[in-house]
């Protein structure tokens, strides 16, 4: 619980970022969490009361490089939210399937279709931790929350 409380504000900020970059996914995540909290046998869990996020979960990855890969367990039209932090200086998040390399300094947040785009993070000198927020397809399927929309740039026109 102490750990959950320590990251609760950051969880909320990342949820707010999602509300901007993929509002329908935010709504779907919120509905799923509300469904969990509204289920009698589930809402007894203190964990949910301390989970200030619309995401299904988070992976905390400390000092690891990642080969080019895609993630699973989500949906193609959803985003993972990657937050990179630390004391390192120079690093790139590479998208080799696109031929794009994103400068990936501390404090950077990337919303990415992690099941669609292969992505890679090389080794870096210094200390680095990545918070990777994700939504799980099976949680949303259980909650009967559709979430089938892709994020279209026309939304912002």
């Amino acid at each position, binding site marked *: 619980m102490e750990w959950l409380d320590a990251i609760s504000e950051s969880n909320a900020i990342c949820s707010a970022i999602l509300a901007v970059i993929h509002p329908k996914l935010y709504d779907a995540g919120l509905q799923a969490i509300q469904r969990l909290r509204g*289920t009698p046998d589930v809402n007894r869990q203190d964990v949910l009361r301390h989970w200030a996020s619309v995401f299904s*979960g988070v992976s905390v990855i400390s*000092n690891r490089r990642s080969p080019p890969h895609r993630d699973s367990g989500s949906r193609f039209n959803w985003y993972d939210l990657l937050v990179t932090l630390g004391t390192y200086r120079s690093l790139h998040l590479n998208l080799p399937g696109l031929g794009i390399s994103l*400068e990936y300094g501390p404090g950077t947040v990337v919303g990415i279709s992690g099941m669609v785009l292969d992505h890679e993070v090389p080794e870096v000198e210094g200390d680095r931790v990545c918070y990777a927020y994700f939504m799980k397809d099976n949680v949303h399927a259980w909650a009967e929350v559709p979430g089938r929309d892709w994020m279209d*740039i026309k939304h912002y026109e």
Partner: protein
Amino acid sequence: MRWDVVRYSDGLPKNSPNPESETSKKKEAARRRRYPPEKKTVTVSMPCVVVDMHGIILTWYLPGILTKIRQACLFSLSDGSDRSRKSDVSQNAMLTAREKLGSLLNIPRNSPSWRDNSEFFHQGDGPQGSANLSPGWFQKGYDVSASACSIHFSAAYSESENGAAMPTGFCKFPLASCNGVARCHLRIQCNM
């Protein structure tokens, strides 16, 4: 991107295979022949989105956004304090939170996943390892982790009125058994 992401994703597996396997590499090479990337890698440092040929957004790139959010928040306080130092408070909170995970951030030895492969972890001032927390992962309470080294925060249970075994507390787990990656798949409704 000059291609259609919906068509592109139709050819992708729902469960990602080991990216290091020869089969995966061959399939990826074939995919790139059909959907070629930029000939020369484009390096990006300014905020941007990556869209497909129809305008579907696949990536939002927000460099340094956490710091800016915190700066905006602190500016609104107008307390005259050292804002440049405090602007990293959110980052620091997340780094501090990592420290609270402590011994759970370990690297398992026998996990089949590349994510747990010690070769991918490197030296840093902080710990090496990863931990997963998913409060709403599996309603039915069965374990989705294939790692033999997994531990679960839901190790402690109490009997609920209907006989379902329920986790009693987030912190009631045997730290002594933390010899693997901490897959904190919180079971929230078990044995129903």
